[in-house]
């Protein structure tokens, strides 16, 4: 029973990592660069939702505030792309990496200025109540997180696979020049994907803040999400979710069964092992081109 309890709480944590990792993968899939600020996006989205919902700030009903927060993060993602990221068009991946790390610091700074550095909790209707399934007590928040994450991953996967826009995004990442020739508005597609990853970050943030307190440094969670994305194989949406779940499940078990001091190393050791032995992750996206 204890095993199952640990497992389910791990799944819920893992879903949040998976959601942040989804943001990485979205941007990687469409632009072949990594947004190191995705964790900070998540934190910022959570704070916007918190600011709209909590009674000491705006006090809006949660079901109005949550879509507004998602829209706001979508807009932020789009504006960041238009004003900053788009100027990096045609420059190396590394430059984008460093740029987004810097952006992360800037976002963290503004969150601190707006909302202070005290940990705060979102007054979310998701956070109340427990469900008991077969002797395992689950927080309502945990169940919601798992369900929402699964749904979101599934719909994004379908979106990339079947819609015109999704295919255009994949084409734009595979070969920008060729995508241009085929009439794909590469820059606009890129703006759209940044907006989409902003929305996903907001969802992750709202779910994360329903579970526990957030503060401006919550974005550091993004590092664990990296592990998730890498383990899943950068560029695979279901892979990101699976990677997140693996990291999430390993953590409580490591904390339970490994000696103190070793447990928090587990996700990173796993990350390094995967990088050394399967550099392209479990769901490898690398294919060899045949002539």
């Amino acid at each position, binding site marked *: 029973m204890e095993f199952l309890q640990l497992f389910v709480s791990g799944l819920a944590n893992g879903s949040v990592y998976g959601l942040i990792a989804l943001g990485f993968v979205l941007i990687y899939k469409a632009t072949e660069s990594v947004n190191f600020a995705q964790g900070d996006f998540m934190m910022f989205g959570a704070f916007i939702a918190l600011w709209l919902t909590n009674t000491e700030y705006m006090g809006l009903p949660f079901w109005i505030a949550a879509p507004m927060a998602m829209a706001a993060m979508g807009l932020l993602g789009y504006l960041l792309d238009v004003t900053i990221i788009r100027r*990096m068009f045609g420059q190396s991946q590394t430059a984008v990496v*460093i740029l987004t790390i810097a952006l992360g610091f800037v976002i963290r700074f503004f969150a601190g200025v707006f909302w202070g550095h005290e940990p705060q909790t979102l007054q979310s209707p998701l956070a109340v109540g427990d469900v008991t399934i077969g002797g395992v007590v689950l927080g309502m928040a945990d169940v919601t997180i798992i369900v929402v994450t699964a749904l979101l991953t599934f719909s994004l996967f379908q979106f990339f696979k079947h819609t015109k826009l999704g295919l255009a995004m994949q084409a734009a990442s595979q070969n920008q020049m060729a995508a241009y020739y085929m009439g794909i508005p590469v820059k606009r597609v890129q703006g759209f994907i940044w907006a989409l990853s902003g929305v996903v970050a907001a969802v992750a943030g709202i779910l994360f803040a329903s579970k526990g307190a957030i503060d401006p440094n919550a974005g550091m969670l993004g590092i664990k999400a990296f592990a998730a994305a890498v383990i899943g194989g950068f560029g695979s949406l279901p892979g990101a979710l699976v990677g997140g779940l693996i990291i999430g499940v390993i953590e409580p078990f490591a904390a339970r069964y490994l000696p103190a001091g070793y447990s928090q190393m587990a996700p990173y050791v796993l990350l390094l092992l995967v990088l050394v032995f399967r550099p392209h992750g479990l769901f490898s996206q690398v294919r060899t081109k045949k002539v």
Partner: protein
Amino acid sequence: MRIHFKTTYNHDIRLFADRTTFLKYAALLVFAVALPFLIGDFYLGEATNVLIWAIAGLGLMLLTGQTGQVSLGHAAFLALGAYSNLILLDKGVPFIISFPLAGIITGVVGTIIAIPALRLHGIYLAIATMAISILADDIIVLTERWTGGVVGMFPPTIDIFGFEIERWTQPDRFYYLVLFTAVVCTLIYRNLLRSPLGRAFAAVRDSEVSAAAMGVHIARTKMTAFGISCAITGLGGALMGYYSGMVNNETFTIVISIQLLMMIVIGGLGSIHGAFFGAFVVAFLPQGLSIAKGWFGTSSVAIPGLEFGVFGMILVLFILFEPDGIYGRWVKTRIWFELFPFARKDMFKRQKSYLKTERLR
């Protein structure tokens, strides 16, 4: 504008392009040596800080700027340098041996870490090194027997053949030690660039395929770059340990790694000058901010994260408007004056490349 009339092939790789350049750098060295007599103890401490960051920056510059491998894990190597120096001193090894040995140990460990990391490139390498940087914190706590864990270690007074250097009471002596190390590291770096190995580094950075076609052993070159880079960074770390007066698991966090990387980008990737310019920005930003706060009359209000927020904004502006960093700006300004009035706007236009996926090869 000076025209170099080349008469031998060796002319291309001379340490200094001509006598004027040599005199300029000689003057700079004289100025650096005279510095303790010109400024007070506080600013001498700051100058020391700049030089220490510059040494660490030189290490990372060799790897990132010269060989094109991004590392977010250099704080781990700073820590390794600092700790191996302190542990050796603890075991009774004299400073004159323990200090270079700390660099060598860090270099060897860096090379070993590089072996699996060789298979990675770009983003994957950045993430792997970032994981190493995070793990370093935990490893320091776990190896408490040697490292002192959370309590940390306190560097003893440096003793070189009876000549004592105490960081707090004799800042001028400590400054000379740091200056000497910085000059040696710079000379090593500069000479490396003139050697076939340095050319191989640049070739690997610019295109691995063409480098391999020219007969460069990619894996070996990258490993050497990692090794030398980590060795220099280790020396910087050992000095940083002395400068901060105390080393524990939180002295060298992932944030230091990121700061180091941002520093060399602001300074100008791929140039020795860049490491020094970037170090100036890192070391003087806190002072500058507190002065700026004084102007707004808010000097007593502590704003957490302000330093990094401003640092991030500076970096964003640099990447957008001056990707070559401070040194790039300096070169452009100088050439504009040298060519006046013939300098043209597009002279420094960067080659754009269109992205192709790395998932399909």
